[in-house]
C-alpha cells in the first residue's frame, strides 16, 4: 500500500523531469535521450504503483508496464533514425559523427 504511493510519487517526479528535459535540451537527439529514459521509468513506476495500491489490478498493470518497457525505446529509436534521415545534424561541441560515412554510402546506393 505505502510502497504503491511511494512508486506513484517517484513516477510522477520522473515524468516531470522527462518533460523538463524535453524543454531544456538543445537538439532532437538530446531531447530523445532525456525524454525516453525519464518517461519510461516514470510511467512504469507510476502504473506499477497503481497496481500495488489496488492488488486486483496488478496483472493488467504489469502488462502495461512490460509493454511500455518494450515499446518506448523502439519508438524513440525509430524517431532518432527518422530525424537523422530528415537531415537534422546533431548538436555537437566537438565533431564526432561515426554515422555520417555510413549514411552517405547508403544514400548513394538508393
Amino acid at each position, binding site marked *: 500500500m505505502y510502497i504503491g504511493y511511494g512508486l506513484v510519487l517517484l513516477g510522477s517526479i520522473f515524468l516531470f*523531469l522527462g518533460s523538463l528535459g524535453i524543454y531544456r535540451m538543445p537538439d532532437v537527439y538530446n531531447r530523445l535521450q532525456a525524454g525516453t529514459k525519464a518517461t519510461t*521509468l516514470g510511467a512504469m513506476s507510476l502504473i506499477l504503483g497503481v497496481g500495488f495500491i489496488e492488488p486486483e489490478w496488478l496483472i493488467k498493470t504489469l502488462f502495461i508496464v512490460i509493454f511500455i518497457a518494450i515499446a518506448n*525505446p523502439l519508438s*524513440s529509436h525509430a524517431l532518432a533514425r527518422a530525424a537523422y534521415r530528415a537531415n537534422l545534424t546533431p548538436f555537437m561541441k566537438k565533431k564526432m*559523427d*561515426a554515422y555520417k560515412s555510413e549514411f552517405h554510402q547508403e544514400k548513394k546506393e538508393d
Partner: protein
Amino acid sequence: MQSPSFSIGKFLYNWLLMFVVWFGFTSSLAPEELLTGVLVSFIVSLMTIGIFRCCSLDIFLPQKLFYIFKYIFVFIVALFKSNLDVARRVLSPSLPINPGIVEFDTKLTNEFAKMVLANSITLTPGTLSIDLVDNRFYIHWIDVQSEDPEEAHRLIAKNFEDILLKIFK
C-alpha cells in the same frame, strides 16, 4: 529473409506466450474465458508463427532462466542509474553535455537478441541507439568518453552482451 523454420518447440512457446497475453488482457479465471483463450491463442499462434520465431521451449531450461533473471536485474539497476543521470543533467543549470555519435560491432547473431540489446542500450545511462546495420550499432552518446569502437563497446554494451550471449547461443 530466412525461410520460416517450423518446429514444434517454437510453436508451443508461441502458443504459451499468446495464452499469457490473453490471460493478461481478460484477467479472469472463469473456465469459459480460459477455454476461449486456449482456442484463440492456438489460432493466432498458428497465423503468426512466421513472424514470432525468437525463441523455443528451451528458454525454460534452469540455467537460461537464471541468466534471464540476472539480465532483468542488471537492466533495472541500469535503468535507475540512467534516470539519476538524466535528472542530474537536466537539473544542473549549465547542461553538462558533450554529445556525439559512436559505432561498434556486436558479436550477437540472433535478430531478437540484437533488438533486446538495442532497447537496453537506449535505456542505459547517456546512450541512444540510432541505427543497426548488419552487426554494427550506431549510438548517440550524450557524454562521449571514447571514440574508439572497442573502447565504446566495452563501456556501453559489454555486461548486457555477455549475458545475452549465454541466453541466445
